[in-house]
């Protein structure tokens, strides 16, 4: 990439621009213009355009739906909701601590005022910070296409870097997070060099305890260690059925390294990522357990 030869001051006038009012209008436009790029916050799309990585002929602006609602089956967040809005939601802070912690470390406050939850998910970066917490919380996403809507579990949504199950004429409209059961704790930990950086490795943990403080359900998800954000189900299973002891904690956290497939890139080596995975896994599991006990 010849970043220095690219003019990042302007956007070339090489696209047609649409600003549909409703998700249905958006779907109709997407059906018509198959190669259209969707513009939500612009914090990824414009950077890629300025760097010459993509040159969309059509840009479709999506400003809605933007909402956070509590319903009987859990929380529903509109895909175009700004990250900053979610970060400031009292309900999210109280009930989905890992999601709050993940959003807090994304970019800068300016970026979070612009970027949207749907954008972070649909960009499908292996390092997307909102993905691990949403995965452990069992989130699902609502997708609108020309033929109506469908719902997909987030764990089935990502196919590879930048690739998702969305067809070219579909758009993500909503994220649904089930209400956590009582005595549930979540945590999120990310390692990166400087605060504006993308994660070298990130992890989210969800633990649910029964009345004897035994772990009745456990989920672990990681970012930046595979072509997509992934779940470490075998490691999570090692935690189930017992109280958290030093032994189960070590077993589960060490098993995480066997479930990830990191690569060596500009942010870290595969060896380092494997090595450090058990450290952040241990910390994240302990933290989630402490929070579950306190809840």
């Amino acid at each position, binding site marked *: 990439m010849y970043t220095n030869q690219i*003019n*990042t*001051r*302007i*956007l*070339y*006038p*090489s*696209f*047609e*621009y649409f600003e549909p009012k409703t998700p249905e209008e958006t779907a109709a436009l997407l059906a018509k213009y198959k190669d259209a790029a969707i513009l939500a916050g*612009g*914090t990824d799309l*414009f*950077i890629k355009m*300025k*760097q010459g990585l993509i040159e969309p002929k059509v*840009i479709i602006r999506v400003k809605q739906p933007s909402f956070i609602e509590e319903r009987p089956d859990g929380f529903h967040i509109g895909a175009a909701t700004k990250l*900053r809005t979610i970060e400031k939601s009292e309900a999210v802070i109280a009930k989905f601590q890992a999601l709050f912690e993940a959003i807090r470390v994304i*970019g*800068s*406050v*300016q*970026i979070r*005022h*612009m970027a949207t939850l749907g954008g972070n998910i649909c960009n499908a970066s292996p390092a997307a910070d909102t993905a691990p917490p949403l995965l452990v919380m069992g989130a699902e996403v609502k997708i609108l296409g020309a033929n109506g809507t469908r719902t997909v579990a987030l764990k089935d949504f990502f196919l590879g870097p930048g690739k998702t199950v969305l067809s070219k004429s579909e758009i993500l409209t909503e994220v649904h997070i089930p209400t956590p059961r009582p005595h549930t704790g979540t945590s999120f930990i990310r390692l990166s060099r400087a*605060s*504006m950086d993308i994660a070298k490795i990130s992890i989210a943990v969800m633990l649910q305890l029964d009345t004897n403080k035994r772990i009745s359900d456990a989920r672990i998800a990681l970012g930046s260690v595979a072509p997509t954000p992934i779940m470490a189900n075998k490691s999570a299973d090692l935690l189930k059925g017992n109280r958290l002891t030093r032994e189960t904690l070590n077993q589960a956290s060490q098993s995480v390294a066997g479930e990830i497939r990191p690569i060596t890139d500009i942010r870290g080596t595969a060896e380092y990522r494997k090595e450090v995975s058990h450290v952040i896994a241990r910390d994240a599991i302990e933290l989630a357990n402490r929070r579950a006990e306190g809840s």
Partner: protein
Amino acid sequence: MRRKLDVEPNELLMNCIRDKLHLTGTKYVCGIGECGACTVLLDGEPVLSCLTLALDADGKDVVTIEGISKGYELDRVQQAFVDEGAVQCGYCIPGLIMTTESLLQENPTPTESDVRDYLRGNLCRCTGYMNIIKAICRAASEPRRKASSE
């Protein structure tokens, strides 16, 4: 001040402010959302004008560095930057000050760590962070003056 402008869909807010309104206080540095030098307040919220379309400002209140002083009377944040010697080459300062305005709006009594966290998207390549942080903490402790709006 209300302004009516014709803008193209590809026109960025930063270029509209600098080239059409000739308000050159808002700076272009990285152009890819890393440095915060182009920060302006859009309806009170800090955004990066290098990644914001000008048409997104339609009907909204845009405050740039030019809009926070009252003529030659500096705003308390600007004054604190002067008093603490927080300015070296100065290129990052408009962005830093706009982000600080937003911080103090949200949290009038930030701790030093609140300041460092909130300002982490504003880079100073002279690396003069110590005095910048001091200036922001000082501004927070000064009584608020009413800022003029553009």
